[in-house]
């Protein structure tokens, strides 16, 4: 690995990691503000101008809380669980391409941290790891509410993993490659090339599955605030709770980035990409387009959370197994047939 590549990788890691953490702070603030505006009230508007320093206040408060471990808890797993809930989401961001390749000197640097040939497989595998975090958190807390929450979370996430995978299979059939960068590249020729127009059902299935994977309303039964106290993170306080909190938001960011790369054309915007920019300016513009799209989807996450009521547990499971899974299978079948006959 040459020096330029090394420096570039380090820079990319810093940018992506920084962007993830930064977006957590932004999301914390925006969620409270937007939800407040939807309810005819102001959100936090005292801490900085327009309350912009609220996330700092939140983080400081969480750091100063008493960090307690219940007597009945299984200490090792109790401490490990938040990390296991947060780390996979960050790992997923490692294969997400936020731009095309930049040419620096005589090296071409792709704007992905790791341009793995099997990016999609990596994503599905790592994404499933976050289930462990939740179920271990629920069990190791030593409390019945947490256990119930953990069980529900595990069942929910496992059920919707299948739909997620099958929705992605549709995209794979179209893109003919497992590498996320190539899937994104295939969509950059024009707005009608975006996979959302070629796989509308796949997009809707993926959307619903991502809501369920990140435990976000209407699928937030595991942390149903009014029913299970706090579900699997009842017994957590201070930084461990902050990790769960951040883990959920980073999972949202990762899921949105996935959605953008797989279905919404990656870094392509109709008028901007035809400007014919070169070099690192093109890289920056592409990254900004990508970030803007991710932002729009995150706003949609927040919007849906404050609109739709929560699913009951049996409704949730019925939806996942009896409706979404058959639909996903039919989607794959139809896509495969259309691709085989050269239509798509």
């Amino acid at each position, binding site marked *: 690995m040459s020096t330029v590549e090394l420096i570039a990788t380090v820079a990319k890691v810093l940018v992506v990691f920084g962007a993830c953490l930064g977006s957590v702070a932004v999301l914390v603030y925006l969620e409270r503000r*937007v939800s407040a*505006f*939807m*309810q*005819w*009230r*102001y959100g936090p508007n005292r801490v900085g101008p327009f309350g912009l320093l609220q996330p700092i206040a939140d983080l400081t408060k969480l750091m100063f809380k008493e960090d307690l471990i219940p007597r009945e808890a299984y200490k090792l797993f109790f401490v490990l669980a938040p990390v296991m809930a947060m780390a996979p989401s960050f790992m997923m961001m490692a294969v997400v391409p936020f731009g095309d390749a930049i040419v620096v000197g005589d090296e071409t640097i792709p704007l992905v941290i790791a341009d793995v040939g099997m990016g999609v497989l990596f994503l599905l595998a790592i994404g499933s790891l976050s289930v462990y975090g939740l179920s271990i958190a629920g069990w190791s807390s030593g409390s019945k509410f947490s256990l119930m929450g953990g069980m529900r979370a595990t069942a929910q996430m496992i059920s919707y993993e299948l739909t997620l995978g099958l929705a992605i299979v549709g995209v794979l059939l179209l893109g003919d490659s497992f590498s996320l960068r190539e899937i994104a590249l295939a969509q950059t020729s024009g707005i009608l090339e975006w996979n959302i127009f070629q796989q509308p059902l796949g997009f809707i299935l993926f959307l619903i599955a991502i809501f369920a994977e990140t435990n976000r309303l209407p699928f937030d039964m595991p942390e149903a605030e009014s029913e299970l106290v706090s579900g699997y993170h009842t017994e957590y306080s201070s930084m461990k709770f902050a990790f769960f909190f951040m883990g959920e938001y980073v999972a949202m960011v990762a899921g949105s980035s996935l959605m953008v790369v797989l279905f919404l054309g990656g870094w392509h915007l109709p008028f901007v990409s035809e400007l014919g920019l070169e070099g690192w300016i093109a890289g920056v513009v592409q990254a900004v387009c990508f970030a803007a799209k991710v932002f729009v989807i995150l706003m949609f996450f927040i*919007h*849906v959370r*404050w*609109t*739709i009521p929560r699913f009951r547990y049996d409704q949730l499971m019925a939806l996942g197994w009896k409706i979404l899974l058959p639909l996903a299978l039919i989607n794959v079948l139809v896509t495969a047939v259309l691709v085989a006959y050269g239509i798509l």
Partner: protein
Amino acid sequence: MVLVKAKKLSVWEKLFFWPLVKGLWTTFSQIFHKKVTRLYPEQRLESFPEMKGHPVLVRRPDGKPRCVACGLCEFACPPVAIYIEGHEIDDEIERAPKVFEIDNTRCIQCGFCEESCPKEAIVISHRVEFGAEKREDLIYDLETLLVDEHEVEDRLDYIRKTFERWKT
């Protein structure tokens, strides 16, 4: 007993697609609605005469308190929040309070002191903000309680009209 049958939904209706879109539009449009929160402390509630805040002592035009330390308010106060020590002074009105303390940790802002005062010397004001950092700061002495008459004019008007009704 009325039997209501649930309407059978068609396949399209069961998807709830259109209701979802309408719901999302409703929540989105509420972002631009006028907010109902009052931004305290920039926007405060308007005071009106009937509002009962903390009692204050009214000054005469020459600056001395109207209070003659008769002790009626001390006697009338339900939680015994008032403490008065009177003394003789060299003036037209020969008695005045030497020490007049209202313990705000006891005062319930009921207004009995105002009702019992024969001189309209102690009046309920519209002071409702009592934040303090030590308990000792909440025991108000004579200096803190003295106000000019114009500050409590609306309350004086109101009590004169109300007490008029009780006169036989």
